[in-house]
């Protein structure tokens, strides 16, 4: 939930990314706690996948960000509007 506030409220895109990581982490905590409660390994397996996917997404996202930053020199999300008409 804190991550959701972060995504909505901050304008620096990197902090938005980090808030997304917080959201993913919250999901992970839930999964592990439930897996512990229900004695089912599926939760932990899923967490491993979530971590892997989060790593991939962070890498690609930051790559896009850097490529964008090289051209536009801004990380303010209000000004990142290449797709806007």
């Amino acid at each position, binding site marked *: *939930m*804190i*991550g*959701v*506030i*972060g*995504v*909505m*409220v*901050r*304008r*620096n895109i*990197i*902090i938005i*990314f*980090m*808030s997304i*990581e*917080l959201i993913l*982490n919250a999901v*992970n*905590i839930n999964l*592990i*706690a439930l*897996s*512990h*409660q*229900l*004695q089912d*390994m*599926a939760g*932990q*397996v899923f*967490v*491993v*996948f979530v*971590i*892997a*996917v*989060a*790593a*991939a*997404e*962070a*890498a*690609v996202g*930051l*790559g*896009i*960000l*850097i*490529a964008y*930053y*090289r051209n536009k*020199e801004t*990380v*303010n999300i*209000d000004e990142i509007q290449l797709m806007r008409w």
Partner: protein
Amino acid sequence: MAEAIAFYTLAALILGLGIMVVSARSAVHSVLFLVMNFLLVAVLYVILGAEYVAVIQVLVYAGGIVVLYLFVVMLVNLKREPEQFSDPRRLGKLGTLLAGAVLAQVIGIAVYSSTRGTTQPVTGGLGSDTPFLTGNTEQLGWVLYTSYLIPFELASMLLLVAMVGAIVLAKKNL
């Protein structure tokens, strides 16, 4: 009893650090709070009996991904000072409203399930006396390679594609 104290302090710290991540003025401070957040979450995983996932969390998440964020933050912040704080007019109200809705949902679900669910005894982890017969690592590896083989393969392909994509994106002469 001691675990309850430990857990609540841990949870309070994790939440507090999360709030600081979102509200720190300089991006580098945000990243640092994020690292501490992840480390505390790893401790939480150990309490819950998932020590392999805890170590993987530190190694991959806190040790790799956040380092990547730190790099990018430093490269991007080399020319700018920390941004002004959030725009209070529209984004703040909308964001808090949305988050409140999510919270209400979660509370609703929790209340609903607590009136019908049965609680099972909790074994393993910090407060139990059942030994780790097969450790968390072996259990996880066994399940990962037998029942969840296809997602495993898909995840590795995803990582490969992401790696290639990131390298291509970061090249200067595209």
